[in-house]
């Protein structure tokens, strides 16, 4: 059987960056082919070349053994290649169904739209994915996770022969991931070739048939998924071995409470949430999508208003009306939506990293000390291994994972006493992840209070000294770290209100 897609000798140069150099890739019909590599290895770029978004500088791409040149996304679509981009590219003002079928709307005569059929078709796709979603909801009002699902549905709607998924699960929880994998399985049986990019190593074993690893824009090799261990793949990616580490729980009996939250409420999103976190402690927050963890974090940070509740920092009740108040009190919040709330893509790495710390770099009359800023930025670039040609590179030119590292650096630089990290490792490769875990543990050891919201249970288990679990806006329990299991967490995460409000939410577990 000849390859569905074969790419050889692909090269792609950006100003100051050689993103691809002699990259190879081959996809067979009916296989799930994982594409792995560190942040900035060139995975997304290679896929953009395949899907007609970028033009390659050199190399050949053939589909069904025939060499092709795609002058745009349309040409690639016509050749049966569909892609889910790593960065969401949806039209926020349009509805879910309108987004999915944009450019391919069911039509009546004279260019009139058949919105009934449109919504029906969209519903059918969500049904086949076994996910509840209102096709008439406006996309801009959805959470990132829901938007990610819309992207997946959109890609499926093309009925492509080749489907590229660039980190489709970065924002999804386990239940949704399971549904996605079921869909992938079905497509695979129908003979569709799937290229799957992810930094979640456990997913490899579950769906991949073959794995191609990239490093620094080159293809390191292609291996059989079943016959290769995860650690081998990791060492192909990062060029060294990584050892598994377990969380060590420090003794915090005498440590002072850094942040205490009492009876936090707002509508249905946050219902009477109370917890505290001590200096030196890492408190994990687990829960299903929409459990309200982000809402709680934003409310504490003053990004959204709250109806009632008391927040105390270092034992003193405080009134936080805006993020500015929060930051002044030593609270930092890293948003789960880096593109909209985390980074300023137009600005440089240096400017972004220093954004929350400007007063430290400005002298009399507000004149900035660029040299000091640069020095600090470079320190963090090195510390977090941010792949960038320099600290003056605009952030928009960095790969997704490296952008995430920039946001982390911003809050590390601010040196807060209470740090709330919402999905901090979203899109970050395994090697860098373990670096970040080490860093968080270090920060805690220095006496800071850390809250980590994560939808990846292994991450929560690996990091947390205690684990708070939320469900439908309520805090359903706090588990001790170290000994809790995934099952314990899931039990609390699905513990709905006893008075039977369960029917309100779509059953996703």
């Amino acid at each position: 059987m000849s390859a569905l897609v074969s790419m050889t000798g692909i090269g792609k140069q950006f100003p100051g960056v050689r993103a691809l150099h002699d990259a190879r890739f081959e996809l067979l019909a009916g296989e799930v082919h994982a594409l792995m590599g560190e942040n900035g290895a060139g995975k997304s770029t290679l896929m953009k070349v395949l899907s007609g978004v970028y033009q390659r500088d050199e190399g050949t791409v053939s589909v069904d053994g025939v060499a092709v040149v795609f002058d745009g996304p349309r040409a690639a679509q016509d050749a049966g290649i569909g892609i889910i981009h790593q960065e969401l590219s949806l039209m926020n003002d349009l509805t879910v169904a309108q987004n999915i079928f944009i450019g391919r709307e069911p039509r009546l005569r004279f260019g009139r739209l058949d919105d009934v059929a449109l919504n029906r078709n969209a519903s059918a796709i969500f049904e086949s994915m076994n996910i509840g979603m209102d096709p008439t909801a406006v996309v801009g009002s959805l959470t990132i996770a829901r938007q990610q699902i819309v992207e997946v549905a959109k890609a499926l709607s093309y009925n492509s022969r080749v489907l590229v998924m660039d980190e489709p699960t970065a924002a999804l929880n386990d239940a949704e991931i399971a549904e996605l994998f079921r869909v992938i399985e079905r497509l695979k049986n129908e003979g569709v070739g799937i290229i799957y990019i992810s930094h979640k190593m456990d997913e490899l074993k579950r769906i991949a048939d073959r794995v191609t690893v990239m490093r620094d824009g080159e293809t390191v090799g292609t291996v059989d998924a079943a016959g290769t261990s995860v650690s081998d793949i990791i060492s192909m990616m990062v060029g060294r071995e990584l050892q598994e580490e377990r969380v060590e729980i420090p003794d915090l009996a005498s440590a002072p409470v850094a942040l205490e939250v009492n009876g936090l409420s707002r509508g249905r999103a946050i219902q009477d949430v109370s917890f505290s976190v001590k200096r030196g402690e890492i408190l994990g927050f687990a829960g299903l999508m929409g459990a309200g963890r982000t809402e709680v974090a934003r409310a504490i940070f003053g990004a959204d208003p709250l109806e009632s509740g008391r927040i105390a920092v270092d034992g003193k009740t405080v009134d936080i009306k805006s993020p500015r108040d929060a930051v002044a009190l030593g609270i930092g919040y890293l948003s789960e939506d880096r593109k909209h709330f985390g980074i300023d893509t137009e600005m440089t790495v240096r400017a972004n990293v220093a954004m929350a710390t400007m007063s430290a770099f400005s002298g009399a009359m507000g004149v900035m000390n660029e040299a000091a800023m640069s020095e600090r930025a470079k320190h963090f670039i090195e510390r977090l291994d941010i792949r960038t040609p320099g600290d003056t590179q605009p952030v928009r030119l960095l790969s997704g994972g490296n952008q995430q590292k920039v946001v982390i650096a911003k809050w590390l630089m601010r040196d807060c006493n209470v740090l709330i990290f919402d999905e901090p490792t979203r899109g970050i490769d395994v090697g860098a992840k373990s670096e970040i875990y080490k860093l968080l543990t270090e920060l805690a050891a220095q006496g800071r209070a850390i809250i980590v919201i994560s939808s990846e249970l292994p991450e929560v288990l690996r990091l947390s000294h205690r684990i708070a679990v939320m469900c439908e806006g309520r805090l359903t329990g706090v588990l001790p770290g170290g000994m809790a299991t995934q099952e314990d967490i899931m039990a609390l995460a699905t513990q709905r209100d006893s008075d039977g409000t369960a029917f309100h939410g779509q059953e996703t577990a």
Partner: protein
Amino acid sequence: MSTETVDSGKRSVGELISSVAQQKLLAFAGLIVLLVGFSLASPNFMQTANMIAILQATSVNGVLAIAATLVIIAGGIDLSVGTLMTFCSVIAGVILTYWGLPMYIGVPGALLAGVASGAFTGLLIARFRIPPFIATLGMMLVFKGLSLAISGARPIYFNDTPGFDLISRGSLIGYFVPSLPIPNGVLILFVVAIATSYILTRTVLGRFTFALGSNEEALRLSGVDINRWKMYVYSLAGGICGVAGILLASRINSAQPAIGQGYELDAIAAVVIGGTSLKGGQGTMLGTIIGALIISVVANGLRILSVPQEWQIVVTGTIIIVAVYLDILRRRG
């Protein structure tokens, strides 16, 4: 953010209008407050004749604002609506008066000039990637200069085309309901508003108009030929400016080459007062009509009250800000 027009399923036009009206209640209520306020302040305000005068004063600006709305929803801006209107009326003058051709050639000719001009502007924006502000600023001057050059910098009168003035000034409604002599110009405004509203909510062009304004890059990545659709949007807007040109020319029974500049600001103001965001991706025609009416009512009411003109200007500015602030409060609360 309200995007009520986008997510319309298959509903009856009546349902559609009522749901939109609900959403816009306070902008509409702002208009009502103004009407009531002026009525209380002066007995001369709330007369049929004055209401008709207000509607007629809205017709040209309203039609221009509709053109501007389309472009703004698509994420652009059109500074050339005013002088393109003038250009189209001059073209009508050339065809009808200079060449002596009949109305059924002159009027479509002027509309076609509008469509072609809009298409050209669209080409500059879509194909040559000139930012809309610059492309339409440049074209604003080009249309203005051409109007003067073509007309010989003098007004062209339509005295040889009997019936031309009836396009705007006649009253079809008044013919049937003599007590309600609403001029045809007003009728045309509402026809254009309903037609474009239909296009926006019910056709592919409308869908892509919202999509262009919402996330052009995402639309492109979906394989849509965004350049083509952008050109359609600007062409349609150009044609609507042509309608405004005919309305204006018919009302003053002449093509005045020197006017038009400055009208774009009133048109854009009507759009924004009507709740359409300059960021693109959302907006309604009903809002725009309400916005245009608010502008006319304020101008008319202040004159009826004999407010000194410098204070009229100050109050108009204040009312624009307050009207929008009320709308913001409503959306938030």
